[in-house]
């Protein structure tokens, strides 16, 4: 693929795919931006009119906006923390030789295959329910007052549920990374006088840095748009305690039928996602360079 002709041919060949992908992205984006500049309410069809930046004004001055922003960042940060730290530890465990390794690895991966709605329902009704849940039973069996997770610590509970879903993903990626570590390096470190904790800190963890970066970047993309878990468990409440940006957009466009306001929220969410992405790439992107 070096001659001029072959390069031109290559460009021609891939252009349909590239153009299709571009349209796929540009058209919805352009429509969202357009709607966000309209006064557009589904309860008043045919009454659309130009609104300028009014929708943005309303969106930013909405008292739910700040809490949604904070909740989004807390949710993303919390789940990332739990899944990376937990994932490293689980990967360390799974990397050991033990009987039934294959089955255990499969079981660890299982939560990732459960649909978000289902897992949220299971957690809500079977684990965290203050009357019937397993946690309530555990609390009662040691003589404690059951803890009403989704009312008393709603955001933490959701972070817990989402972490449970993403932990397997992180563990799996980190496990494969750990398996690619040359065992002679660990032996060399052992000869060099590094005890197990220092071997972990100086050899294993730096080796994992690239995999951790990948986990953080991929998870962030999905965690910015967590929705099902919130809808099923708390419906954004109590108050706005578990409303993130995605959920706020949903509330405004589908519960209040205000498409214009919802679109403005969508655009804000896109901008926020890009800001987060820029920060992430700045902080950890250099790990991806070979």
């Amino acid at each position: 693929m070096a001659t001029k002709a072959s390069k031109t041919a290559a460009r021609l060949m891939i252009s349909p795919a590239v153009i299709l992908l571009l349209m796929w992205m540009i058209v919805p984006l352009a429509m969202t931006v357009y709607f966000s500049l309209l006064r557009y309410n589904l309860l008043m069809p045919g009454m659309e009119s130009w609104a300028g930046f009014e929708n943005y004004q309303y969106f930013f001055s909405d008292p739910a906006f700040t809490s949604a922003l904070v909740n989004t960042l807390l949710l993303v940060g919390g789940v990332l923390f739990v899944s990376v730290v937990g994932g490293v530890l689980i990967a360390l465990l799974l990397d050991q030789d033990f009987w039934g390794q294959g089955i255990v690895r499969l079981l660890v991966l299982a939560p990732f295959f459960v649909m978000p709605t289902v897992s949220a329902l299971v957690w809500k009704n079977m684990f965290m329910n203050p009357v019937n849940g397993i946690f309530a039973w555990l609390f009662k069996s040691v003589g404690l007052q059951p803890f009403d997770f989704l009312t008393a610590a709603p955001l933490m509970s959701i972070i817990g549920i989402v972490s449970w879903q993403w932990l397997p993903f992180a563990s799996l990626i980190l496990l494969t990374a750990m398996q690619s570590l040359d065992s002679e390096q660990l032996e060399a470190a052992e000869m060099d006088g590094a005890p197990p904790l220092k071997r972990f800190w100086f050899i294993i963890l730096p080796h994992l840095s690239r995999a951790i970066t990948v986990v953080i970047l991929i998870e962030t993309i999905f965690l910015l748009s967590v929705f099902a878990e919130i809808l099923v468990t708390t419906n954004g409440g109590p108050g706005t305690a578990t409303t993130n940006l995605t959920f706020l957009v949903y509330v405004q466009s589908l519960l209040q039928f205000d498409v214009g306001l919802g679109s403005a929220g969508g655009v804000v969410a896109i901008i926020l996602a890009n800001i987060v992405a820029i920060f992430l790439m700045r902080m950890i992107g250099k790990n991806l360079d070979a």
Partner: protein
Amino acid sequence: MGRITLEGVAKRFGDVEVIPPLNLDIEDGEFVVFVGPSGCGKSTLLRLIAGLEDVSDGRILIDGSDATPLSPARRGLAMVFQSYALYPHMSVRKNIAFPMRMAGIDETEQKRRIDNAAKALNLTDYLDRRPGQLSGGQRQRVAIGRAIVREPSAFLFDEPLSNLDAALRVGMRLEISELHNRLKTTMIYVTHDQVEAMTMADKIVVLHAGRIEQVGSPLELYRNPRNVFVAGFIGSPRMNLFTGAAAAEYGAETIGVRPEHIGVSAENGKWKGRIGVSEHLGSDTFFYVEDTGLAEAVTVRADGEVALRHGDTVWLTPAEDKIHRFDANGDRI
């Protein structure tokens, strides 16, 4: 100091006995080479000494005190691995500093030792590079540097040259020998290459299926191989081994003659044959002589300028006093 004594050391993986109990003495300052075909247990033996594997039986004494229960770090040995095992995320300087950092040696002393090692190993210009930016030979030197700065009582080398190309291997061989002459520290070196063993060792330990076949200086092994295995393994090209009538004539089950101890003549001699492949190296010529009735091909070394070619009929005459005789068990008579 670095006197290492193995007393009845054995290693079993499950039911498989990789190394039957063996005894070995390594004197302080000696350059000892473990040599043998692949799978003979030489690397396992080295790892037992290093402490990376636990012995199944027996004791390892370092400078007279029992080191068997000690962790690898506390045995005071340094190891150079086959893959070099450099830490890829650290600069050369940090790689070399790592063992000292773990030992808690203060910064100025660390710096002094790093500078000394870098100077000795020609690494001064590369100290701030990552291992990934170095060539194979340089990586090898970094690995050696990392071992030197610990000032160990003995160095352990696990086939350190097997990843290098032929020219570099010869160079590194000289460097390691020079290093040994300068440091006068005990070195244990594992290789499957008998040329490395012959050129570097003070003492060679020939291993075969976990057993020690013979221990001795390179020339001792060359002159007096204790059995057929050692005879065939030491020396390049391999010694010719004949059985049958030719051996019976000398009252032995097997006789061995090295290629360099057989005379070649176009007119007369003891055994008649025809030249098959011949290798002209300039300084020497190696003939693989066929149809002798002794073995499939008899390897013979002749002068570099000898005027014999493929297909010529030749006569071979062994030097009578250089014939090695072995009995039915393969042991030397």
